[in-house]
């Protein structure tokens, strides 16, 4: 099946070439970071995690959201999603790969990365995150590849695949829960110290991940003969509507406890994020995120704008951007400001950091393009 990646029209080849160039640029700047250290990024003593960890957090959510199509199809035999589960699984593969790469490029001593395996530390959440992310990646590789192979051979998928699929469902929930636990167990950082974090992460993931999946399906419909089908897209849009509403509700619940509870060390971070006095880059993007969330909410809740593809696309793009900000820089950076010693430092990613980030995204997009191309080609061949 892999040979299908090599065949394609001019636009396809140009797109793949563009991604390869972006990867190369990212690689060049990563070599620079390898040689000079993480000092070439905008991170510092006070804000010690930045753009890399922000993207990691967002992408784990995208990976987990594959469960939105996998669960209804396999547990409830919801046939409408039958044609697109494979794309959900392939999206998860790309997203987990990207999140692992983002952790890797964030390491100060990347050559020692295997110390995590050599000196296993079960009391560290990062250790468990490594385990669940890798397990989830392997499962999705096996499940995705084997079901597609079966489809190509026009036979039923092997029975041993079923238990693996069932295992992948709770694992999807657990990758995002464990990722939330990285933050929500730290007494030092009141901004993250909330039991609501894992549910909030899941809600926003189940909005943003499927939104990305629909956009990808629409792109595929434009460039290939594969059509996910109106019904599938509308059902996913409905799921996104619920997830986004729950996400918004959770956010307001969090704000209530923080501001009505009024404990200064909790309030300070939120004031810094939204209020006057915060770093403009962060404050402005946090407000944009909030406005986009509200716009998307109204476009999705209204059945007319949700059912019209023209407006639905805008709602989906708004969801993706809003959650990327909210769960990315708007989540990681304010956790560090003010610092434990009251310091109000600022953070802006450097050019090198941005180019490395783009390089990692290009790797992910390359994987998505290649895998989606294979799956779409297999389905095209079958319909002929």
């Amino acid at each position, binding site marked *: 099946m892999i040979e299908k990646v090599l065949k394609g029209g001019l636009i396809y080849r140009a797109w793949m070439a563009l991604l390869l160039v972006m990867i190369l640029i990212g690689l060049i700047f990563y070599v620079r970071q390898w040689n*000079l*250290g*993480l*000092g070439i990024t905008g*991170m*510092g*003593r*006070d804000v*010690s*995690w930045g753009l890399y960890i922000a993207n990691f957090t967002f992408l784990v959510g995208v990976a987990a959201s594959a469960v939105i199509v996998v669960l209804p199809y396999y547990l409830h035999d919801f046939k409408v999603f039958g044609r697109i589960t494979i794309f959900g699984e392939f999206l998860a593969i790309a997203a987990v790969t990207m999140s692992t790469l983002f*952790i890797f490029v*964030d*390491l*100060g*001593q*990347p050559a*020692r*990365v295997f*110390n*995590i395996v*050599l*000196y296993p*530390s*079960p*009391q*560290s*959440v*990062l*250790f468990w995150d*490594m385990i669940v992310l890798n397990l989830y990646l392997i499962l999705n590789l096996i499940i995705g590849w084997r079901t597609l192979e079966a489809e190509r051979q026009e036979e039923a998928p092997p029975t041993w695949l079923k238990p693996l699929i069932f295992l992948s469902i709770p694992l999807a929930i657990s990758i995002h829960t464990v990722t939330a636990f*990285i*933050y929500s*167990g*730290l*007494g*030092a*950082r009141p901004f993250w110290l909330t039991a609501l974090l894992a549910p909030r992460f899941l809600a926003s993931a189940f909005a943003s991940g499927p939104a990305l999946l629909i956009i990808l399906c629409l792109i595929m419909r434009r460039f290939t003969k594969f059509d996910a089908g109106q019904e599938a897209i509308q059902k996913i849009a409905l799921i996104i509507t619920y997830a986004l509403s729950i996400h918004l509700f959770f956010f307001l619940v969090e704000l209530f406890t923080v501001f009505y509870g009024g404990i*200064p*060390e909790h309030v300070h971070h939120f004031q810094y994020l939204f209020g006057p006095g915060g770093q403009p880059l962060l404050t402005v993007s946090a407000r944009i995120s909030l406005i986009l969330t509200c716009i998307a909410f109204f476009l999705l809740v209204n059945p007319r704008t949700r059912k019209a593809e023209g407006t639905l696309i805008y709602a989906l793009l708004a969801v993706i951007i809003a959650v990327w900000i909210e769960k990315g820089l708007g989540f990681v950076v304010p*956790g*560090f400001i003010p*610092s*434990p*010693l*009251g*310091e109000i*430092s600022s953070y802006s990613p450097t050019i090198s950091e941005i180019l490395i980030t783009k390089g990692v995204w290009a790797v992910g997009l390359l994987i998505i393009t290649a895998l989606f191309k294979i799956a779409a080609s297999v389905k095209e061949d079958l319909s002929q």
Partner: protein
Amino acid sequence: MKRRDFLKIACFSVAGLPARSAFDQLIGKALAKQPGVGKPKWAMVIDIKACVAKPGCQHCIDACHNIHNVPTFNNPKDEIKWIWTNPYKEVFPEQTYQFSSVEVQKQPILVLCNHCENPPCVKVCPTKATFKRDDGLVMMDYHRCIGCRYCMAACPYGARSFNWKDPRPFIKGFRQDFPTRTKGVVEKCSFCEERLAKGLKPACVEACTAGALTFGDLNEPDSQVRKLLALRPSVRRKAHLGTEPKVFYIYEAL
């Protein structure tokens, strides 16, 4: 007791013991286990009054940063600090300062790694590169650290610094007898583990001319630190977090 109940209890105790200890391991509670009698538990007492009586004094900071090859960066982003001062208001943020004069609020207070009995940094480290010794010292293995900086996120005291760049060109007065660090690893105060091994006091304590720093064994009832803590009111930074810091601040004689 009925035979059934006995079996139930027996089963639960057999299954429960390892389960309990595994749970303690997971939440990091096992870190705080007490050492055997007669073993030391090192702590430091900082006399705020004696310390601020010498404004501008930097002896302890200079001594520490000099013997440990701590680099000097001009950029606060890259800064590496083992022991330094911060305004009183920021060191003890949970107090109210409405009625304190600006001078009091800005009073520089000495801060360093608290060598917590229940260290969050050790709990989160994915490679055990930072670990707690039986004598209470929270240590760093610079050769094992992968530079993920999870410990920096977990430390409630901002005690940890990361080598954003190769520190060697920025070391003033390089010392042969102490290892330098490489880029990409975290470092912090070690309570002068290398000096304790030789029976010496930490460098900052030795360098202090104000008599503000006292170092000793908490498990020794006659030690200087125990006497000070018995007689003078003391506070610890963010004690409400349950980290059990072993740097104590005493503020006034009764």
